[in-house]
C-alpha cells in the first residue's frame, strides 16, 4: 500500500485529497490532475479526534453537531470522523478497524454531513445510469435500493452511486445526478441471487451480513479502464415503498406528494435541518419534482418480482423519453 503521496479522488462530485487510499470511489489519474486543478475541494487527513465537540448543539450516541456546523461521527469499534466546513475530514480510526470499515462510514454518514455542509442535496438513493440519463432509487432503510440498482445493472445500466446520490442543478435548473460510491452494499441473500459471493466482496463490519463490492467493474469487464462516471441528467426518481400485496405496483406521483415526506428522500435530513438548510432542501426537492417524473414503486418483499420491477422502470423511461 502506497502511503506516500496523498491521492486525489472524485468524491460525490468534489475533488478529495486523501491520506487514506480509498477503494470504492474513483481516483483521478495523476496525468489528469493538472488539467483539472491542483486544488482539492476537500482534504482528508488522519489525526486525533476527541470524543465530543467543543460546543455541541445536538448529540446522539453516534453523531454530534457543533454550534459552528461541524459534525462528529463516532462508532467506538470503527473510529471517529470529524467533518468541518464542508472541506475537511479528519479520521481517527480505531486500531482494529479494517480499511473497508472506514470507507463504509466515509461513503455514508461522512459524505452525508459533508454534502449538507456544502449545500448539496443528498438524495437517499442508489443511482444508475442508462441511456444517458440517471435513475435515482430512493427510500428509507431496508427498502431495497441497492438490490434494485443491482438488478438494473444486470439489465445493462451502470451504477453511479449506492445509497447517497448528490443532486446539482444546471443554470437552467435541470437536475443532474452526481456519481458517488460504486461500492454496492448487499446482504447475503441478495448476493446469492445475483451470484456475487466472490472474495472481492468484503463484510462492511466484522461478521456483518452486508458485504460491499465494486459492482460495475466485476459485471462488465472492458478493455482498459472503464470510462469515468460523470454527472448525468436526472431522468426519473423512483420511490420504493412497501406493499401489502404480492405484486409490485408502479405509478406516477404528481405535485408535492412526490417529494413528501422529505425524510424519505433526503439522506440524514435532520443534519441538514440542524445546519439551517431545511428550507433550501425543500426547495431543491420541489425543483426536482418540477422537472423530473417521480414514480412510486410499491415493492413486495423478496426477489421473485425483481424482473417485473425492472421492466416497469425501464418501460416508463422509454415512454417518457
Amino acid at each position, binding site marked *: 500500500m502506497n502511503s506516500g503521496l496523498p491521492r486525489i479522488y472524485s468524491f460525490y462530485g468534489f475533488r478529495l485529497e486523501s491520506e487514506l487510499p480509498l477503494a470504492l470511489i474513483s481516483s483521478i489519474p495523476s496525468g489528469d490532475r493538472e488539467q483539472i486543478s491542483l486544488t482539492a475541494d476537500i482534504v482528508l487527513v488522519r489525526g486525533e479526534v476527541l470524543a465530543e465537540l467543543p460546543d455541541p448543539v445536538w448529540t446522539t450516541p453516534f453523531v454530534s453537531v457543533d454550534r459552528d456546523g461541524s459534525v462528529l461521527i463516532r*462508532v*467506538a469499534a470503527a473510529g471517529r470522523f470529524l467533518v468541518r466546513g464542508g472541506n475537511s475530514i479528519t479520521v481517527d480510526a480505531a486500531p482494529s478497524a479494517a480499511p473497508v470499515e472506514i470507507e463504509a462510514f466515509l461513503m455514508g454518514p461522512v459524505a452525508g454531513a459533508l454534502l449538507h455542509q456544502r449545500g448539496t442535496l443528498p438524495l437517499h438513493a442508489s443511482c444508475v445510469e442508462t441511456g444517458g440519463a440517471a435513475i435515482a432509487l430512493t427510500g428509507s432503510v*431496508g427498502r431495497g435500493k441497492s438490490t434494485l440498482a443491482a438488478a438494473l445493472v444486470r439489465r445493462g445500466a451502470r451504477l453511479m452511486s449506492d445509497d447517497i446520490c448528490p443532486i446539482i442543478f444546471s443554470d437552467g435548473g435541470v437536475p443532474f445526478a452526481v456519481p458517488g460510491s460504486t461500492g454496492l452494499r448487499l446482504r447475503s441473500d441478495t448476493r446469492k441471487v445475483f451470484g456475487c459471493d466472490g472474495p472481492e466482496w468484503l463484510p462492511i463490519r466484522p461478521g*456483518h451480513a452486508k458485504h460491499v463490492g465494486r459492482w460495475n467493474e466485476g459485471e462488465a469487464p472492458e478493455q482498459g479502464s472503464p470510462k469515468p462516471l460523470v454527472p448525468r441528467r436526472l431522468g426519473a426518481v423512483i420511490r420504493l415503498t412497501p406493499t*401489502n400485496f404480492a405484486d409490485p405496483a408502479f405509478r406516477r406521483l404528481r405535485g408535492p406528494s412526490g417529494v413528501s415526506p422529505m425524510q424519505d428522500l433526503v439522506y440524514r435530513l435532520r443534519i441538514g435541518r440542524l445546519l439551517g438548510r431545511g428550507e433550501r432542501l425543500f426547495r431543491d426537492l420541489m425543483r426536482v419534482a418540477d422537472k423530473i417524473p417521480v414514480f412510486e414503486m410499491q415493492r413486495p*418483499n423478496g426477489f421473485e418480482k425483481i424482473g417485473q420491477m425492472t421492466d416497469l422502470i425501464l418501460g416508463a423511461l422509454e415512454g417518457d423519453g
Partner: protein
Amino acid sequence: LSDSSAARFGWLVSYPRSGNTWLRFLLASLMHGGQPIDINAPGIDTPVANRREFDELFCMDSSLLTDSEIELARPSLYRLIANRFRGPLILRKVHDRSWRNAEGKLMFPPELSRGAVYIVRDPRDVAVSYAYYAGIDIDEMTLRMGDAAMVIPTGREQAIQFRQPLGTWSGHVLSWLDDSAMPVHLVRYEDLIAQPAGELTKIACFLGVSPARAHAAVAAVRFDVLRAQEDERGFRELAGAGTHFFRQGRAGAWRSVLSAVQAERLRKDHGAVMARLGYL
C-alpha cells in the same frame, strides 16, 4: 403503576402469534372513541425494533452497525423517543423477551415505562399459528419454541428490523413476568377472546386510558372485520410465508392439528409455565 410523567411507555408485549396485533387494534379503536380502524394505519404505534426510526433519530445508518452496537444504543433510543413525544402514553409493540444489553442495561428502561401488558396464548395454539405464518412444519416450530437462542427476524425483515431475542416460549413469559423491573399486566389471549370488553377495560385501566368505549372498540375490531380488510387491502405487517395474517384467531385449535407427540413435547418443555398460566 408508576405515574411519574417520565414513565409514559406502555409496552404491548407478546411472543409472536399470540394476539398482540389484535390487542393493538383494540386499543387503537378504544383511544379513538371506539371508531373503526384501518389495519394498515391504526394510528397509535410503531413496532419497537424499527431501523427507520433508529436511523432517523440517531442520524446513523443502523445498517453500518453491528448488532451489539445497536443493542447498546437501544435503551437511549427509547429515551430520545420519550423526549420528543408530547402525549401522555406511548404504546409500542414488543416481541423481544425482557433482556439486558452488554452493559447490563435493560432494553426497555423501567424508569421510562408505565408498564407492560403481557399477552400470552396457549403455546400449543402458538405452535400451530406460528408454523403456518413462518411456513415451516409444526415439528420444527415446537423445536424452535424450546430453543433458548431463538431470535427474530430471520429473513429479509432483518433489513428493516433489529435483532429481537425471543428465547424459549417459557423463558419469554418468565422474563417479563418476573424480571422486567416494571409493572406487568398479564392477559391471556383466551380470556381476551371470551370476554373482550371486560379484559380490554382492565388493560385500559392499567395503562391509564379511558375504558368508556370498550364495547364499541370490541365491535369495531371483530376478527371477521379485520380479515375482510386484509382480504380487500392486504396487511403490511404480513411478513411471513402464510397468505393471511388474520387466520383463525380461535382458542384451542391445536386439539385438531397437533399430534400427541407434538403436544407432549410442548408440555414437556413448557409444563411448569403452562401450569402457572392455567393451560394444564
